[in-house]
């Protein structure tokens, strides 16, 4: 006779599960898939919950894995918001139909046009500037001018670069293709490769250390890596140079977010994005990783401001996505590992 009782028990358990699911669903909440890591998003989510009472549930993973996951889950995805650290991935998410076009006057006024998708599928939330850093004992700043100039033979054996497998370099080259065309960009990248002092390195910090140790004279990095390294060791003979100030401007990328195509809490999701673009969150969002706020009304942190003001490349970062594959192939052809 114990069969029926165990069935009843089973149903009771299932019933409880549904009750739990149902009550859970009633509390207002936003689910975020984030490629931006926990310690760079959690404080803003906490602030958001304090202000609005809306809970934020999130999971982190690599961009590619998150996109594959959204694609597989399709219209049943629990995710309302996707956050990534690079325009290319946001562009790819939009192209794959994973993001929804939204219109929000707040977002549109807070975020400059070149840092968001023209169709409103994603919005930049912080700006990452990819700039030049040189060894102050070996290079006079007057020697430096542009990214393109690093292909000049005068830099032979003096350049260090991070690997082309990193999306930051792919975006930089993609923007150069948008500006100069493929043939000219390939010539420049080949010039870089010819000037390398050592094989491409695995990360920006490594490249900075190589410059500081005198293995090479100049490198291209995201500024927050410079900030972190100098904070730990202020005596290093390194300084920032803002390139391309007389023409296109410094290459910038974004970390940004979009509302997922099948979000069930669209209103709350938009509210979260608006909050993240507002003055309440922008400082925190950027300062926590020494990045620049995407909202031009907000000043970057003191450390970051001390590096000086610069002209940003005003071309829409959507180009970085559109041309990423072209850039990757171009760098393979040019022998840039």
């Amino acid at each position: 006779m114990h069969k029926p009782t165990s069935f009843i028990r089973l149903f009771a358990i299932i019933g409880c599960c549904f009750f739990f699911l149902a009550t859970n669903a009633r509390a207002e909440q936003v689910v975020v898939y984030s490629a931006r890591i926990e310690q760079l998003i959690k404080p803003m989510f906490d602030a958001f919950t304090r202000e609005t009472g809306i809970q934020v549930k999130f999971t982190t993973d690599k961009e590619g894995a998150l996109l594959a996951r959204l694609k597989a889950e399709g219209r049943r995805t629990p995710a309302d918001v996707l956050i990534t650290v690079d325009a290319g991935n946001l562009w790819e998410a939009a192209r794959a139909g994973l993001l929804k076009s939204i219109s929000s006057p707040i977002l549109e006024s807070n975020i400059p046009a070149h840092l968001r998708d023209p169709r409103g599928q994603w919005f930049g939330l912080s700006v990452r500037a990819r700039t030049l850093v040189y060894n102050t004992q070996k290079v006079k700043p007057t020697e430096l001018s542009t990214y393109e100039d690093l292909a000049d033979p005068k830099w032979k054996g003096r350049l260090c670069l991070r690997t082309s497998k990193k999306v930051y370099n792919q975006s930089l080259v993609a923007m150069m293709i948008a500006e100069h065309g493929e043939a000219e960009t390939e010539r420049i990248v080949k010039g870089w490769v010819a000037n390398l002092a050592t094989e491409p390195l695995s990360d920006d910090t490594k490249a900075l250390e190589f410059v500081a140790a005198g293995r090479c004279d100049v490198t291209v990095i995201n500024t927050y890596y410079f900030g972190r390294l100098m904070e730990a060791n202020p005596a290093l003979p390194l300084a920032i140079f803002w390139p391309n100030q007389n023409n296109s401007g410094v290459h910038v990328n974004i970390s940004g977010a979009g509302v997922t195509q099948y979000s069930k809490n669209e209103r709350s999701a938009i509210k979260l994005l608006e909050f993240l673009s507002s003055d309440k969150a922008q400082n925190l969002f950027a300062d926590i990783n020494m990045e620049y706020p995407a909202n031009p009304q907000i000043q970057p942190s003191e450390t970051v401001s001390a590096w000086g003001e610069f002209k940003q490349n005003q071309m829409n970062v959507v180009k970085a996505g559109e041309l990423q594959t072209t850039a990757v192939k171009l760098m393979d052809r040019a022998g840039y590992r």
Partner: protein
Amino acid sequence: MKNENYFTKGDKTVDPPQTFFHLKGAANIWRIIPFLIAALILIPIAVVFSSVFMPANDVWQHLVETTLLTLLINTFWLALGVLTGSALLGVSLAWFTAVYEFPGSRFFSWALLLPLAIPAYVTAFVVLGLFDYTGPIQTNLRTWLGTELPWFPDLYGRSGVILVMTLAFYPYVYLMARNAFLTQGKRLLEVAQSLGLNQRQGFFKVSLPMARPWIAGGLMLTLMETLADFGTVAIFNYDTFTTAIYKAWFGLFSLPAASQLASLLILIVFVVIIAEQQFRIRMRYAETKRSARVDRIALSGWRSSAVACFAASVLFLAFILPIIQLSIWAIQSLMESFDQRYFEFLFHSVLLSAAATLITCFAALLLVYAARLYSDTTTRIAVRIATIGYALPGAVLAVGIFIPVVWVDDLLNAWWLKLFQVEIGFLIQGTLGVMLIAYMTRFLAVGHYPIDSAMQRITRNIDEAAMGFGLTGWSILRRIHLPILKTGIFTAAALVFVDVMKEMPITLMTRPFGWDTLAVRIFALTSEGEWEHAALPAVTLVMAGLVPIILLMRQTDK
């Protein structure tokens, strides 16, 4: 060996459950077990393979035109180098610690396993940090000499990555070979010597060939781990087939091309595995009585110092150096990165690893035993398929697992919707069950090889004798095989436990909300280049991984 016990017990073992297995239909359970397990694991692999039907010609054309040849050559040398290095280190150290007495031999016998607990990419980062141009070694040498160094080994080349991966992966071979040498016993060597062979000849002509299945198993694990590795080669910026997979996926936004490349990788590994298996299929490896530890041969004079130095330097490079560096970083960042949640991360890591170990080893045991009962070609192939998940880059396998899970959820939903007119959302996705099965898919090979090679030690005669006493099915496994397989099972368990602790992509993709582990924490910190801050979770992970390794060694040395 306690065979006598079983035979005496054999008289009274005819209780009802066992007669059940005399029935024809029930006996077939063992016939289909390998196929069931293989089918389960084949699902994600099939998802990866199904990419073959999707268009990705442009990516292939691009690869063929630019980097494919280099990648293949790089991968070949890397695999060959790491296999050779691991075989040399693993087998020699196993031989020394299993057979000889030298200063510290008892300490080294377990300490040499410790590198297993350190993820390879961590060793890579630490070794490069210490020895490359900006590291303290070269910097101090430069200050000391007052000039640029005339020459220093270039770690960013092929030799550097081979060295680091060898240091990280030799314990697989060491552990397996050591089990072989211990279970062979010294008696084998004595027989060899009575036939006029000296110790060296005895090793090369008798002990080494007799240890073949163990060493081959360890090398297979090393090969698969090497081919699937992404973290280590990325730190060296050494381009392999796996880096191409990731480039196709993340750089060229082509998951189909990435999956196709991964399918090719599996095919290559599969061919190697089958070839290796065919090579030793006709051999039988039986156990002699196991010798007690007191029988070890004492090495004397310069020989013992040389062996001790060799073992010490391997241990220093592969474990002590990385752990010192990690500890320094961990102490530096202790104040900033430590919080209450560390205990939660640790708890999650240990719980998941333990549960995954249990499932994986149980599946491996069933697989091994079933394959022993029915050793026809189809069963053997099914077993090989079931253990192929280890050769796939983790992130690709994670997607392969995720897609069918969602698909099952969709089916359940459709069915539920029809019955009750409500949607229930995801039922199985995001549950721990999926996570554990995913781990099993990935690590079944790690559980399989140690148990499989231990099974080779059990002669057919034992089975026949047991059947003569009326034992069948489960009872042979439980009463006769399990006690003999104990060492193999413990080995498998320790390896799987440590591997699951270190695993990243599957954990990231399948974990339920809020189920962060130490590995997830390391990912979070290293992905923004904050290696120093990642030291604390890394040290914790290593320490937690040491526990099963030390338990294992106490078990095998008994």
